[in-house]
């Protein structure tokens, strides 16, 4: 149910993870998970539009004025090349969702990991927008991406059923 996932990600991000501030500049952003979990054969145009819209309403609720939409777009356009690069030999099964349960941890790490890094780097770099804070920006990016990755993994294990083995 994409619409339920959309609402769930939005609610969790705005009302839970925006309020959490673990320190060290860490900001947990879980909504990239929604973009990563769109179906494999999703049209790129609709994916860009959905990402923009998702980022936009999160922007409205967290006073970031377009930062989240911009970062979500950057992630959405990077998704098809990265997914194609790591596709299995006989292609993706378009009926399945790209969750960690179906595709395995290894695949999830090499696709979702770089996407998260792109998203976070774009977000934090635009936010500080100066070179003399480069080191701090990178530190924030890597720490946040690491924590976000773990949180997203946990969320997937909670909310998705494990597929029956055939």
């Amino acid at each position, binding site marked *: 149910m994409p619409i339920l996932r959309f609402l769930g990600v939005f609610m969790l991000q705005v009302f839970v993870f925006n309020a959490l*501030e673990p320190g060290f500049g860490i900001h947990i952003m879980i909504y990239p998970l929604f973009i990563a979990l769109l179906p494999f054969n999703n049209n790129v145009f609709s994916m860009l539009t959905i990402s923009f819209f998702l980022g936009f309403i999160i*922007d*409205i*609720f967290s*006073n970031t004025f*377009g930062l989240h*939409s911009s970062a979500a777009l950057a992630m959405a356009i990077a998704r098809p090349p990265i997914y194609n690069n790591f596709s299995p030999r006989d292609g993706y099964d378009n009926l399945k969702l790209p969750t960690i349960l179906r595709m395995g941890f290894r695949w999830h790490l090499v696709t979702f990991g770089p996407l998260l890094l792109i998203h976070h780097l774009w977000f934090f770099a635009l936010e500080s927008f100066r070179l003399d804070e480069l080191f701090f920006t990178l530190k924030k990016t890597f720490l946040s991406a690491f924590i976000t990755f773990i949180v997203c993994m946990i969320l997937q294990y909670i909310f998705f059923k494990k597929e029956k083995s055939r």
Partner: protein
Amino acid sequence: MRNLIAFLERFKIFIYFIFLQVIALSFYFSYISYPRGQFLTSTWAISGTFLNFQNDFIKFFHLEENNVVLQQENIRLRKNQLSNYVKISSELVQKNDTIYKQHYDFIPGKVINSTITRRNNYFTLNIGSSQGVRVGMGVFSDNGVVGIIYMTSRYFSLVKSVLSENSNLDVEIQPTGIHGYLKWGGTNPQRGSVIGISTDIKLKKNSLVYTRGGSGIFPKGIPIGRVEKLLPIEGKPIWDVVIKFSQDYRSIQNVYVIKNLMQEEQKKLEANIPAENKK
């Protein structure tokens, strides 16, 4: 023409991406430099209502500490009451021969949404223009300065907190009253720095930093923090004074918005400064 269509056909995804990206970034940079609209932020009525709803739950976790803070403030105010003072001698009569006029008005409000980890941090208040909040008013809490109103809507307002890149409040440091400007480094929400103080001035650790009240946004004497250490700035004869904020911005709840009743008068007077003296 055919080439152009072929080009567009080939790069249509990228062009669409650029198109959306331009929308997002133009929003971002126009809001950062100059607040124009009121929708699309948490001061917007719909998102404000949701955040208010969220705050209704969260505020219970802070009830106890808020009570303590309010109690302390009550004690402080009660100490100033006339009935608290005893006449030392019956011959001395205190005569009130100065007419006082109210200078500042305060509007109480609650922070319903806040961040502290960003480069520029904004707080959302549950009071807005219908309660008399205007852009440019100062905001403080019982413990210290919070920021300046950046944007208002009917029932909500947005504060650009001192945890931002260009807060530049003018501050004074006890006991000499030397003044400088408040900056925030962008990393630690508990520490800021005061710049513009010449290195030939000796400052003591733990001396109080408070607002100067120069621009008429804050009254003089609202605490900001205490001096923690002095760092030299390379190549400049000024200190980078590291201060610890007296307000913990991570758990901020109750704030007051300052309405300066004589702002207009001060502005009118200062407009007479000849242009070549202004920087």
